[in-house]
């Protein structure tokens, strides 16, 4: 067995404390917990009648997060349809845009949660939403970094530009502060003024920093030269342009020149008279101590990392990242504090240790949504092939199965899970088969939706089972027609036989058929089972008889017995049905047909008499039977006589 990565969390079950014994049962997503009676010394404990349901994943029940599940489902399905045979060069932009779509869905969700958190009046709801927002924020942060490092896999030069975008996006409070400063009466006097300028510089937003500085410069004509110098330094800082003709080496040379210029300014003490400009100049020179003095403005170690790279090592290669990341983390968190999960996840990403990222995320988050979708995307980028699990099939499939199973426990989101199972080649189908049978079916409409899912995937066993459930329900409510329709849909011969039997019983009891609209329109479905065929044909006989098409009716009736379509138990009823035909004025049964009828009657009575031979007292029922048989024999004999005479008469 593997070692535990973290200590499992403890969930307290209310009303089940102080040494009581608990039993539990696994569900697909939840656990059921109940108190068991466990007697050690014969003393019976009071039994607690409650069953507790322990849920791992609460997020699935949040109305706003549901939008995340639904929208990402759409993106997921779109991703699966990207063809494998495209050259990988063409696929990369597609993967990046899909990754961006996922992130924009997260952002939309985050914004809505934020609005809700502000507008709600209940404080506990507000904190709950607040927590969800911070989780989503972390998720988006990690996702974005993974997009830069793994999916886009930018080379040196471009890499830093992407990292800068990443930091700017997730440290957007600068803009808010800047707005505040600019809207105040005298921006330059605002106490946050220099914070904003420095923050802009730290994020490499030099244009904006220059705009802010101009305001100060105009107010201090004496220091104009100094401001002018700073403005030149800022405007001359080279940025790598990946689309341009400049090579990375050329850029590096240019950058070094600029850096030397900054150093010269520092040595000349050009900004000595203004401490703020001095600080900015030190930042531009990449002075680590100055950067660390601004921890408050950087707020995170990864911002520190990116700023340090910007002003120190702008041509950093992806492979060197982990070295800088590790040192920045230690420098920034000077106290021997244990790094938080987010820190170690980001560090693992900088180290290009994908599996560690996914593993840490799985442990830190209570929902599989993030890891399942990210892993799937990374797998499509062919980044996860070397790793094999010693259970299940592979990491992608394992995570998708877990996520989809979670969805299936939800009363409404189960429909989304179907597409996820479809894209798990090894175990997806088995999972789907097991889950789909357990969807509660309240209405026919829902049953049809479930059936459509099964039929599309040729899951005939499940189709039968669902039709059987619906059919049995109809049968219980005495809706024979409906039950028969279900059995026909499932092509379930045994069930059709059972229902046909019920129809015939009803007919024997009441003398009329119910559900004629169905029976009269069976069509080819009649051939599903022998008994159903008989039912349909027998009904046809009644119809012919009702329409006074006697000879056709007689022929059909006889064939039902001679072709052994009718069950033996029903022969007596059929023969009784023949009685009025035998008694008609005209001759309907020919001599040959009459012989056959007689043969049927004899076969029936001989088989009936054998077991009943030993009884002494004939019951009332048997009396009726005997009279019936005698009546039939008489009618048959009379009809035979008439038929012979008629057939013997030469038509002139």
């Amino acid at each position, binding site marked *: 067995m593997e070692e535990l990565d973290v200590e499992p969390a403890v969930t307290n079950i209310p009303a089940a404390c102080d040494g009581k014994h608990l039993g539990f049962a696994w569900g697909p997503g939840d656990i059921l917990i109940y108190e068991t009676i466990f007697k050690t010394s014969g003393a019976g404990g009071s039994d607690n009648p409650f069953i507790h349901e322990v849920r791992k994943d609460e997020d699935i029940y949040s*109305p*706003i997060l*549901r*939008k995340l599940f*639904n*929208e990402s*489902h*759409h993106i997921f*399905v*779109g991703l699966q349809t990207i063809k494998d045979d495209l050259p990988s060069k063409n696929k990369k932009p597609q993967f990046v845009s899909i990754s961006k779509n996922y992130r924009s869905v997260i952002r939309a969700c985050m914004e809505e949660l934020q609005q809700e958190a502000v507008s709600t009046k209940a404080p506990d709801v507000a904190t709950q939403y607040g927590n969800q927002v911070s989780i989503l924020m972390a998720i988006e942060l990690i996702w974005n970094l993974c997009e830069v490092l793994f999916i886009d896999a930018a080379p040196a030069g471009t890499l830093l530009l992407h990292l800068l975008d990443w930091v700017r996006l997730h440290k957007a409070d600068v803009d808010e502060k800047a707005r505040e400063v600019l809207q105040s009466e005298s921006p330059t006097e605002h106490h946050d003024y220099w914070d904003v300028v420095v923050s802009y510089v730290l994020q490499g937003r030099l244009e904006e920093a220059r705009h802010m500085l101009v305001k100060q410069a105009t107010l201090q004509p004496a220091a104009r030269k100094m401001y002018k110098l700073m403005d030149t330094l800022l405007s001359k800082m080279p940025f790598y342009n990946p689309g341009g003709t400049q090579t990375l080496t050329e850029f590096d040379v240019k950058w070094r020149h600029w850096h030397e210029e900054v150093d010269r300014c520092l040595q000349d003490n050009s900004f000595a008279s203004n401490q703020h400009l001095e600080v900015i100049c030190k930042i531009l020179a990449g002075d680590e101590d100055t950067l660390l003095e601004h921890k408050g403005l950087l707020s995170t170690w990864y911002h520190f990392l990116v700023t340090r790279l910007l002003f120190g090592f702008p041509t950093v290669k992806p492979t060197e990242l982990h070295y800088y990341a590790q040192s920045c983390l230690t420098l920034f968190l000077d106290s021997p504090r244990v790094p938080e999960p987010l820190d170690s996840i980001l560090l693992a990403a900088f180290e290009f240790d994908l599996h560690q990222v996914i593993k840490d995320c799985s442990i830190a988050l209570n929902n599989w949504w993030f890891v399942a979708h990210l892993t799937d995307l990374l797998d499509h980028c062919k980044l996860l092939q070397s790793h094999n699990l010693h259970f299940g099939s592979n990491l992608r499939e394992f995570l998708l199965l877990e996520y989809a199973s979670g969805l299936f426990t939800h*009363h*409404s989101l189960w*429909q*989304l899970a179907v*597409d996820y199972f479809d894209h798990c080649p090894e175990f997806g189908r088995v999972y789907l088969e097991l889950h789909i049978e357990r969807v509660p079916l*309240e*209405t*026919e*409409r*829902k049953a*049809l*939706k479930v059936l*459509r899912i099964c039929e*599309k995937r040729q899951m005939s066993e499940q189709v039968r089972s669902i039709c059987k459930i619906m059919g049995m*329900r109809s049968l*219980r*409510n*005495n*809706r*024979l*027609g*409906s039950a028969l*329709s279900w059995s026909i849909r499932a092509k379930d011969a045994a069930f059709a036989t059972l229902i046909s039997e019920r129809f015939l019983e009803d007919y024997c009891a009441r003398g009329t058929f*119910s*559900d*004629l*609209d*169905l029976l009269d*329109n069976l*069509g*080819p*479905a009649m051939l599903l089972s022998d008994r159903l065929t008989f039912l349909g044909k027998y009904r046809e006989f009644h119809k012919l008889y009702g329409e006074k098409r006697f000879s056709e009716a007689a022929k059909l009736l006889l064939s039902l017995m001679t072709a052994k379509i009718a069950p033996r138990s029903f022969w007596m009823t059929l023969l009784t049905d023949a009685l009025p035909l035998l008694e008609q004025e005209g001759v309907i049964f020919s001599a040959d047909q009459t012989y056959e009828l007689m043969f049927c009657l004899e076969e029936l009575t001989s088989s009936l008499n054998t077991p009943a031979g030993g009884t002494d007292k004939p019951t009332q029922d048997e009396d009726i039977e005997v009279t019936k048989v005698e009546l039939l024999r008489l009618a048959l004999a009379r009809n035979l006589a008439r038929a012979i005479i008629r057939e013997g008469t030469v038509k002139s």
Partner: protein
Amino acid sequence: MESINAKYVSQKISKTRWRPVSHSSLQQADIFATGSWDNEDNRISLWSIGNHGSSGMDDGFEGDPQLLCEHKHDGDVLDLQFLDQDRVVTASSTGAVTIFRHHQNSQTLSLSQRWERAHCYPCDNAPCTSIVCSSPEIVSVGEDGKIIVFRSDHEGVVRVIENADSSTIHAVTYLRTTEILTVNSIGQLKLWDLRQQGSSPSQILSLSGDRVPLRCVDRHPNQQHIVATGGQDGMLCVWDVRQGNTPFSLMEAHSAEMWEVHFHPTNPDHLFTCSEDGSLLHWEISSQSGMPSFLQGGRNNSMISRSAMAPAGGNQSLISAWLSGDSSKGRLETTHMLPSQTLSVNSLDVLGQCLVCGTDGEAIFVNRQVPI
């Protein structure tokens, strides 16, 4: 397709309906109702697309539909109809038929009348599958094969036709004021004259062959004998109830259950269908001569107005249009109205140039510029 607006609503939508607009004003559709299904708490909700004060038809992006009010609903909403401007009737999977009132001043919904277990088995619920109303009369049908007639001003039930069908009745619509039409799960259309007592239909039309269940039905707004139905296999059938017992034309429309079919209420050359396969189709009869169809009917008809008030005029070209609906001759054009979508489109409604539909992907799509 650009003018389509999607909104995710955190509930699977089973029905969407526009609130009727009064004929006197040239008002655009602005409020619609939705019903949800398969949730632990189902709801009916009213939404506004906020056409108030907007003048131009050119700006398709006027923002999301805004929720006006909602109310809890027991069971899945299986059907939803506006009785009048401020009353909504719903059919529930619990078998109940409920009237909700929309108070426009306070923007609230309240329960106004309810027939609990209108459809039921002796010891089980029987879902009510469809309703149709023509104020004050309401007709409901259900899985129990019953047809029930209510009046909104009556507490009791006006009339029940027991055993109207041996299978499930999936949908109902008015043919004339006293005649209704039902479709069932063995491929039959049944006409019922409500003036006649007794529990047998006045006419039965049926599909030949495989008896594919019919899921939905709509009547041509002007030619009352023309009826369109949608089947479980996604087939669109057009019937002429005056002639023959089999459909006039069959067209392959969708690859799975067709959940709803609707003629455009004022421009019946257009028809809309939606399906379990996740598509929404717009069917249009293109005029062969390239002339607007109202000019084709000959001199006598050329004065017929095409407004909402248009009487059921005898426009011969229209009759032949749907009844000869020959897709092979290229007279019938279909367009997909939704971007690719995998989950079922359960319901649609169209009024004027506005179309709304709801899906199992928990999204509502609104298109304000349907090319009519």
